C-alpha cells in the first residue's frame, strides 16, 4: 500500500487555522530558527481520510472477530465507555487547573480508587503508571522505598517464577534488583522447595501472577506469601490475570502487599494497537505514603518514591474503566470472571481433542497448548498453526509464551464470546489438525487470506529501514 508520503503532493492542504489577527512581533534571532520546514505530508482531507480507511481495512480488532490472545484479555470494549470519556467536561480539563475547578476529575480518581481497592483488597491506589510494565516498575519502587526507609539495604534480590512475563525481570533490573528465578513444579506452579531455599534475608520481595501464565491458580498461594513475609520480603501481585478472579478472590486476602492492574485488559478499555493503557498500582497501608503523585498540585510528599510520569496518569482511561465497573457492579464483575473461566475451560475441553494442553488440569481464564510433538513429528510449529488460524477469520493465540512450554500457544477467550464463537474456534483447530495430518506443507504457506504473506523479519532486523526517506 502507498505510504502517506507517497500520496503527498506539494501545495495540497486544508485550512484549519485562521489568519493572524494580531500585529506581528519580531521573530527570534535567525540562529534560533529552523532552516527548512519539516517534510510532513501535504494532502487534502479526503485523501487523508481515505488513506486511513485503507489502513483500517488492514487491521484486526476485537470488533473484527475472535481474538483469544492469551494474557492480553481481549474482551469487548463497551461503546458507552467511549461516550462517557469523551465528555468535553473531562476532555477539556487542564491537569494544572485549581482543584476546585476539577472536582469531577478528582471524584473519578477517588471513586475508581475505592472501587478497585475493594476488588483487589488493597488500601490505596495511584493511577500515575501508564501501562502494566510501568505499574510493575512503580510497585517495585514502593518495595525498594519500604526497605530503604527501614535501613534494610541488603535486600537486593527479587524472586520471580520462570513462567513470569518478561517485563517482571526487566522491571526488577530497573530498580537495581537481581532476579532469583524459581522453577515451576510438575504441576506448573511454584516449586515450594526451591522457594524455601530462595527465601533469605537478601530477598526484597516476590513477583507473582496468580492465576499464573499457564492459567493455573496456585493452590499454595497462602504458604507462598507467608514464606516471603517470614523472610522479611514483600509480595507483589502482577494483575495481568485478574480477569479470572474478580469478585471471587482478592490479592490482598492472598497475602499480597502491592498490586498493579491493567485497566486495558481486565476493565475493558480499548488496547488501541498497543496503548494508551493504564497500570494503576494499589497497596496496603504500610506502603501508602510511598505512592507517586503529581508534585505540581500536591507538592512533594516526603516519603513518596517521586513521579513515574507527569500528572495523574492516563485519566481518560480511568474514566472508561470506572464506567465499566459501575455498569457491571459487584454482580456483573463476578459474572464476568466466572464466565471467562467457564469459556476457557469449555474451549480447552474441545481443543485438547486436537492438540495437547501443556498442563491438563482445570484452568482459570486461559490455557496453554504445546505443539512440541507436532513440531517434532510433522515439522509444524506453533507459528505455523497460528498463521493457519488467521485463514479461519480469527486472531491467533499468543505464541511461544510462557517460555517454559515448548511450542506454546496460549488461549484466552474472555467472557464476551458466545458459545458459537468458541465452537467455531474449536472447529478451526480441528480443521488445522486435519490439514497437518493430510498435507502438512500447506500450512507453511499460511496465511493466504491476508494482504501480505509472512514477512521477512531477518531482513528487517539486519537492514533496518525505520522511516521513509523521499527519493
Amino acid at each position: 500500500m502507498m505510504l502517506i508520503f507517497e500520496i503527498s503532493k506539494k501545495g495540497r492542504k486544508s485550512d484549519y487555522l485562521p489568519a493572524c489577527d494580531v500585529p506581528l512581533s519580531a521573530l527570534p534571532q535567525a540562529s534560533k530558527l529552523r532552516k527548512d520546514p519539516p517534510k510532513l505530508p501535504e494532502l487534502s482531507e479526503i485523501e487523508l481520510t481515505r488513506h486511513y480507511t485503507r489502513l483500517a481495512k488492514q487491521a484486526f480488532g476485537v470488533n473484527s472477530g475472535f481474538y483469544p490472545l492469551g494474557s492480553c484479555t481481549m474482551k469487548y470494549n463497551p461503546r458507552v465507555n467511549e461516550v462517557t470519556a469523551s465528555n468535553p467536561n473531562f476532555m477539556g480539563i487542564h491537569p494544572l487547573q485549581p482543584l476546585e475547578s476539577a472536582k469531577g476529575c478528582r471524584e473519578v480518581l477517588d471513586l475508581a480508587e475505592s472501587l478497585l481497592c475493594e476488588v483487589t483488597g488493597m488500601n490505596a491506589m495511584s493511577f500515575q503508571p501508564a501501562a502494566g510494565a510501568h505499574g510493575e516498575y512503580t510497585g517495585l519502587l514502593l518495595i525498594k522505598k519500604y526497605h530503604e526507609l527501614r535501613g534494610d539495604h541488603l535486600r537486593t534480590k527479587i524472586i520471580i517464577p520462570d513462567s513470569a512475563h518478561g517485563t517482571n525481570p526487566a522491571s526488577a533490573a530497573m530498580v537495581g534488583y537481581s532476579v532469583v528465578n524459581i522453577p515451576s513444579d510438575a504441576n506448573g506452579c511454584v516449586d515450594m522447595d526451591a522457594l524455601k531455599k530462595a527465601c533469605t534475608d537478601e530477598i526484597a520481595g516476590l513477583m507473582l501472577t496468580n492465576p499464573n501464565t499457564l492459567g493455573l491458580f496456585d493452590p499454595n498461594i497462602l504458604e507462598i506469601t507467608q514464606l516471603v513475609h517470614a523472610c522479611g520480603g514483600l509480595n507483589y501481585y502482577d494483575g495481568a490475570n485478574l480477569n479470572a478472579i474478580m469478585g471471587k478472590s482478592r490479592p490482598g486476602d492472598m497475602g499480597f502487599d502491592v498490586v498493579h492492574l491493567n485497566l486495558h485488559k481486565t476493565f475493558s478499555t480499548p488496547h488501541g494497537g498497543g496503548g494508551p493503557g493504564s497500570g494503576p498500582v494499589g497497596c496496603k497501608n504500610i506502603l501508602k505514603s510511598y505512592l507517586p503523585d503529581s508534585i505540581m498540585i500536591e507538592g512533594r510528599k516526603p516519603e513518596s518514591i517521586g513521579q513515574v510520569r507527569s500528572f495523574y496518569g492516563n485519566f481518560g482511561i480511568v474514566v472508561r474503566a470506572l464506567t465499566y465497573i459501575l455498569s457491571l457492579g459487584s454482580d456483573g464483575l463476578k459474572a464476568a470472571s466466572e464466565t471467562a473461566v467457564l469459556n476457557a475451560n469449555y474451549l480447552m475441553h474441545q481443543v485438547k481433542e486436537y492438540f495437547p494442553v501443556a498442563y491438563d488440569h482445570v484452568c482459570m481464564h486461559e490455557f496453554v497448548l504445546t505443539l512440541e510433538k507436532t513440531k517434532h513429528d510433522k515439522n509444524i510449529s506453533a507459528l505455523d498453526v497460528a498463521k493457519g488460524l488467521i485463514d479461519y477469520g480469527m486472531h491467533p493465540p499468543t505464541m511461544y509464551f510462557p517460555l517454559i512450554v515448548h511450542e506454546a500457544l496460549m488461549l484466552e477467550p474472555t467472557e464476551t464470546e458466545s458459545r458459537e464463537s468458541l465452537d467455531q474456534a474449536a472447529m478451526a483447530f480441528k480443521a488445522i489438525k486435519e490439514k497437518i495430518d493430510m498435507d502438512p506443507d500447506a500450512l507453511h504457506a499460511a496465511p493466504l487470506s491476508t494482504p501480505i504473506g509472512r514477512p521477512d523479519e531477518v531482513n528487517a532486523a539486519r537492514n533496518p529501514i525505520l522511516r521513509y526517506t523521499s527519493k
Partner: protein
Amino acid sequence: MSFPKELRYTKTHEWVKSQDDSVTIGLTDFAQKELGDIVFIDIPEVGDQVTAGVSFADVESVKAVSEVISPVSGIVTEVNEDLVDAPETINEKPYEAWIIKVNELGDMEELISAQEYEQLTKEG
C-alpha cells in the same frame, strides 16, 4: 555440523585458536544453528579489556539474544569489523567469522577438545 580438530572449545559454545601469545575467538557452528539467523553483533573496541568467564559481546537473532563469553582475560588487539555489516557471516562460515583477537593473556577458562565439545552438544 562441523567441529574442526585444530580448534579448542568452551562449554559456552565459543571456539578458540591460540597462536603464539594471542588467541582468536569466535562462535561455534552449533551456537549459530541454535541462534538462527544472526542479525546483529555488538563487538568491543580495540584496547578494551576482556575477562575470563565474562561476556564481551551480544549476538542477536530475530527472536533471541546470546552473550559471547571470553575464555581468557586480556586486551583486545583486533576486532572483525566486517561482522558489523555482515553478521550473517557467522551463520555462513562460523569458523572463519572470528570476532576478536586477544593478547597480554591472563587467566584462562578450561578449554575442551573438538571431540569433547561434539559430545557436549549431543548431550544437549
